[in-house]
């Protein structure tokens, strides 16, 4: 949770990119959106949730997963964002969509605002004991829960954990990116919304 010795977020996302299959949706937000956009040209089924309402990426992904239950949906969320919408863990487990994979990138800070510690991070708490998102997910009723600290560990386990019975919760301990800025919207939102909906419609499963 401290972020020290943790994996590079770009490397962590590259593993997801390797395992993303044709037809999978990938919702990214905040830092994950910035890193994802830097990795290559967008897929029509990428939803870069920028601008967002912070914390709402898992809820948006839940809606997609419920509307198209035969399609796998990945939601990439930061730990600060997760804290803003912890109830989503309960909502998702209540609906229990088998096609949803939520990946929480734990760096312990609000990265794009200057790396201030979140109240869930060890650094943000007097007892220096960070909250454990994977345990929170389990307590909320998720049964396929995984947590990885090292890139190799994540890379070796990705296929099995992503392929587990959904909904799947994966916590990745990542290092903050020094001097990171917020992601820039990749284009006009209304047009992007229209194209994304159309891509989902054309490839509906």
């Amino acid at each position, binding site marked *: 949770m401290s972020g020290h010795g943790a994996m590079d977020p770009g490397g962590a996302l590259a593993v997801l990119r390797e395992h993303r299959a044709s037809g999978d949706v990938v919702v990214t937000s905040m830092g994950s959106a910035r890193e994802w956009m830097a990795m290559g040209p967008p897929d029509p089924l990428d*939803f870069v949730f920028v*601008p*967002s*309402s*912070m*914390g*709402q*990426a898992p*809820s*948006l*992904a*839940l*809606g*997609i*997963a*419920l*509307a*198209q239950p035969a399609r796998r949906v990945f939601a990439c969320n930061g730990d600060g964002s997760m804290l803003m*919408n912890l*109830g*989503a863990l*309960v*909502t998702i487990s*209540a*609906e229990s969509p088998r096609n949803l994979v939520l990946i929480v990138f734990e760096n312990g800070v609000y990265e794009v605002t200057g790396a201030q510690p979140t109240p869930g991070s060890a650094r943000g708490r007097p007892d220096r004991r960070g909250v454990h998102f994977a345990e929170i997910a389990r307590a909320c009723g998720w049964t396929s829960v995984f947590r990885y600290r090292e890139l190799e560990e994540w890379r070796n386990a990705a296929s099995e954990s992503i392929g587990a019975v959904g909904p799947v919760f994966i916590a990745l301990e990542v290092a903050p990116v020094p001097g990171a800025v917020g992601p820039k919207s990749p284009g006009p*939102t*209304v047009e992007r*919304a229209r194209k*994304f*909906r159309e891509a*989902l*419609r054309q490839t*509906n499963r």
Partner: protein
Amino acid sequence: MFSGEQIAALFAELGVTHVVTVPDSTIGKWGDAIARANGMHLVRVCREGEAWSVAAGLHFGGARPLVLIQCTGLFESGDSLRNVLHDWKLPIFSVIGYRSFLNQETLPGDSCLVFTEPVLDAWKIEYKLITSESQIGTIREHYRACLAAGKPGAALIAEGKA
């Protein structure tokens, strides 16, 4: 004012596929009938801000969601509502319970009466105030008008005791 069966039948007639909701003592009584309705799924969320984002995802996926919340939840919804309705301009329709409008016995001077309509105006949501059972057709017409125009809208349901 309305029974759950009336509301479920109306939503079904309008083609609603998912009702995303946090209950109150009026709209909460509709939940069982909605959940029983063929072709409609009730999604219970933990807070109202979630409801707009879940509805947005459903809309992207080709479903026809509706958000069903109380006005206090409208107040809570702010940033999520802003993002979904104004950043992404998604035409999400909502049915919103208007606490204490018909009866302030439980909560005299309920500030919901002060803020609900100005907040809807501030968020630029076109709404119809529904104060009697005879206005069920108004909900139907407003929903269809909003759908045809591709814009969000709301039916504001006057409620009695909190």
